[in-house]
């Protein structure tokens, strides 16, 4: 059981962490980064799994089932598009090397 005050500390420290991690990001990575942070809150999946696991009426099962589908979509979709975008970022040196291999 996470105590109320302890939770406040966790909220605060996590907020500072998020702020610090992002504040050093160059503009060129803003879109992939928004996508990446979108993927990270896909952790809601584990919560949705636990919630559906504890559901004990048909109504709650339906809500939980939809919840897990949505959460899985968030996590998987967020990962796929973020990775696709980031994979395309290459430096001039790497680009030339990649082309040589291709031919």
């Amino acid at each position, binding site marked *: 059981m996470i105590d109320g005050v302890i939770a406040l500390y966790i909220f605060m420290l996590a907020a500072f962490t998020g702020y610090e991690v992002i504040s050093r990001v160059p503009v060129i990575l803003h879109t992939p980064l928004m996508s990446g942070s979108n993927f*990270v809150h896909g952790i809601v999946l584990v919560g949705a799994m636990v919630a559906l696991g504890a559901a004990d009426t048909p109504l709650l099962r339906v809500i939980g089932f939809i919840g897990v589908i949505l959460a899985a979509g968030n996590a998987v979709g967020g990962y796929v598009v973020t990775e696709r975008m980031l994979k395309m970022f290459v430096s001039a040196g790497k680009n030339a090397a990649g082309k040589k291999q291709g031919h």
Partner: protein
Amino acid sequence: MNTLNAQTMTQLSYLVAAALFILGLKRMSSPVTAVSGVRWAGAGMVLATLVTLAFMTPTLNMALVVAAILTGGAIAWVSGKRVAMTDMPQMIALYNGMGGGAAAAIAAIALYRGNEHSFAHLTLAIIGGFIGAVSFSGSLIAFAKLQGLITKSVRFSGQKAMNLAILVIVLILGCTVICGVKSELPLVSLFFAFSLILGVAMTLPIGGADMPVVISLYNALTGLAVSFEGFVLDNAAMIIAGMVVGAAGTLLTQLMAKAMNRSLGNVLFANFGESSGASTGTMAGSQKPIEASDAGVMMAFSQKVIVVPGYGLAVAQGQHKVWELCQLLIEHGVLVKFAIHPVAGRMPGHMNVLLAEAGVPYDLISDLDEINAEFDTADVALIIGANDVVNPDARTNKASPIFGMPILSADKAKNVIVIKRGQGQGFSGIDNALFGLDQTRMLYGDAQAAVGQLIQAVKAAG
């Protein structure tokens, strides 16, 4: 003892996952380590999911969990692999909305069950549920707008008053649920219904141009909702990851709004998005056309060319052609750079993604602060599908609606070549003073075709 072990194992795996998320986000802050960053975060996600699954009691519910993961995951996997890079913003909106919806579903289950919740738990379940539901329905509207499914921005007088009224109703319902009226099914249902309506009503009047800021805001909100529901479920991974995203998303939203010279309040409540009808630009001089052959020769014999791409280029799918042109110029010994305005694409950084897709190395791409001092030394600034972001009125003309917006100083270059479809105004309907300058030449035509002609011209120049 056995259950204690399971508890400890789960909590430890969540701790590792949270650490991987933070490290992953940090690695995503540099292009060199970015791909490994998302993979670290992905490993954290897989770990947390597998451990959670492993310690579930094998019942009907567990089968449902597996079925739901496979269904949602498969749909998202296929759509995520297929989506075009130009459509990325709305896809992010969609996935983000799903996360918000999941958080709202968790809140709904906790509230419908209604047993043994403390005041703090109930309050955060309600707030998280509210934010999640707003983010869910709002993101769906944002998706529909950017996808072109909704083309009109619905606006009517008294709209703000109506939204405020909905918000008040949601607040009253929420407080009633918190204050001890437990597991009142109709009340909780009404609470969620009005939260969902508020998300729709809030997002409908916002114009397409402002949508990226809104998507970023909803991303931050979903993070908050996940964090609060994490508290309800005693799940440290959700609390930490959600709050990290909440804070990061808020900062990102502010950065975007600032890059567009708008405050967040302005975006949400002023409905500027596509309604600025007044064209109060200063057009000194006339627009002087140039032939592609002349423009090509001019560039081939330059020392330094700075390319300013805009969203118009991406719409015409001209990125690949532009990179081909630039490679030719580089072979001629020309120094080529790309100048990207923060709002060049549909959201900050979107244009970088589109150029990266065409194979442009990121070290040739500079953002506003880096490149602006370099226009003085550029022989040619090639503007393709960009308009407002190079309008010098933003610096000098106080009457202009975009006054004060940071712009790329393309007007400082010795020659400016503007590729433009026709003589009309830009996206925001504002005249562009750059087009009338003495050193500016207009190359009329479709971006893709015009760049193709330039390639031929540069090749012919030897």
